[in-house]
């Protein structure tokens, strides 16, 4: 983890109430999709944690919904704004494990995202494609105006299904309605969705969200129970393996 200054390059509305912020800064420490960054916002006491969506050598993006004071303030930030950032945080998705499993026993791989939980999975799909693996991608949203990154995913893999609860775009229903069952899943999204995906999967890695104090393991604010004892979402997570998750 480093503390760095990131400069906003662009901060755009990409779907209903949903923004993508692209920043320039030192991204050297990011090693895995699913890791996150803790951004300090003026006049708000706690930093805000966001999953990394896209990153390269000197740019990083996050996708967020403006749901409270902090994210609303963020949505108004202009290009050039400098932000204090702690990055990278958390473990992220173990893409190697995922590939190994796929190549070893032929498990079918599924990437399942819900809402802004789609963001870290973009990095995961990119990493998988670099290894020649193109998983099936299922992305769930409430309705068509919430959908984002459909084309970005399709640039990497052709097997992308958009699911909306009201059927206004793509298939109608929930992500789990379109699982065949028994897949090895890389998932991120609301907890209810994660639980439903967990139930229908045979294995996988699940990215969790939590209210955090520090984001780097000091305050014990985001501890959860797992099959292997207490874990901090910010430190031993935010990605947990299917077998360690306790609902």
């Amino acid at each position, binding site marked *: *983890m480093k*503390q760095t200054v990131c400069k906003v390059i662009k901060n755009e509305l990409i779907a209903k109430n949903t923004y993508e912020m692209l920043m320039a800064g030192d991204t050297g420490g990011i090693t895995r999709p699913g890791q996150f960054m803790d951004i300090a916002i003026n006049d708000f*006491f*706690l930093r805000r944690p966001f999953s990394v969506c896209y990153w390269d050598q000197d740019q990083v993006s996050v996708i967020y919904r403006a749901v409270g004071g*902090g994210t609303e303030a963020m949505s108004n930030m202009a290009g050039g704004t400098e932000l204090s950032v702690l990055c990278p945080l958390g473990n992220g998705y173990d893409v190697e494990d995922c590939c190994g499993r796929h190549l070893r026993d032929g498990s079918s791989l599924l990437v399942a995202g819900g809402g802004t939980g789609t963001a870290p999975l973009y990095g995961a799909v990119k990493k998988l494609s670099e290894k020649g693996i193109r998983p099936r991608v299922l992305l769930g949203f409430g309705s068509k105006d919430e959908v984002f990154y459909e084309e970005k995913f399709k640039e990497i893999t052709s097997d992308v299904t958009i699911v909306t609860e009201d059927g206004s775009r793509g298939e109608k229903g929930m992500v789990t309605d379109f699982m065949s069952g028994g897949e090895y899943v890389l998932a991120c999204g609301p907890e209810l969705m994660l639980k439903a995906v967990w139930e229908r999967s045979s294995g996988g890695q699940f990215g969790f969200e939590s209210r955090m*104090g520090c984001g780097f393991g000091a305050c*014990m*604010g*985001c501890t959860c129970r797992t099959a292997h004892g207490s874990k901090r979402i910010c430190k031993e997570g935010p990605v947990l393996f299917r077998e360690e998750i306790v609902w």
Partner: protein
Amino acid sequence: MVNTKICLSGLLLDNPVIPASGTFGYGREFAELYDINILGSIAIKGVTLAPRFGNEAPRIAECEKGMLNSVGLQNPGCDAVIREELPELSRVFGKKIIANVCGFSIDEYAECAEKISREEQVGLIEVNISCPNVCGGGMAFGTSPELAAEVTRAVKAVSAKPVYMKLSPNVTDIVSIALACQEAGADGLSLINTLAGMRIDTEKREPVLANVTGGLSGPAIFPVALKMVHDAAEAVDIPVIGIGGISKAKDVLEMIMAGAHAVQIGTANLIDPWACRKIIEELPLAMERSGIGDLEEIRGTV
């Protein structure tokens, strides 16, 4: 050259800056970021006899210039801390530490303090009679002078190290509690712990914290802490460690002028993991600017 050294019941510290219990874990996360040997000491995460998961999530709520937590004394238990955490910590921190202990009965306080006080690296015992986030323990013992004195006596009778009582601000008269602890044999006092508070999510129409209430910390509470340290330090003859919302060297000087011997830095570590290092670097400069050669000169002068 200014002198930042201070002494707590025979324990000589290079400087008065100590990370507060519960905001620094057992040091591991911070040792990866900087050489934590620059710290005066470390107050480790509170220890209970049995392992505790703590409270359900959410455990954190944001406030103006502060935060609420309702962690609820999550820790792996006294034996595991002695077996696993203390040896790990000793690899990255060569100085004496402050072991923070908590309990749900007077016997538990005593047993826990006795065990951990025997560890060589433990310099002081800090007895948490002020945690607002657990039922039937913690603060229940710190809001009555009689019970606070009883815990003090029980821990003093068995502890191999000096005993500091960590006091709650959630009381009518902190001086009466401070005096009760001193009379019962406490070697020093640490204050304040967090102030009981709550937040409501107006959309959901329910408390933000699963525990409903939590403890307020951060710069918002600094003036409250300063006043309580001032009142307690004036009343007792034993050393006081000032805690509550300290985030810069100037706050440290205020606390010492109010009568504190040392200070603990809590929530600032969570916002800026390098906060203690910055304060330690700033302190001599702030002293020079104010014409202070030794912290002794200003202690309790206000």
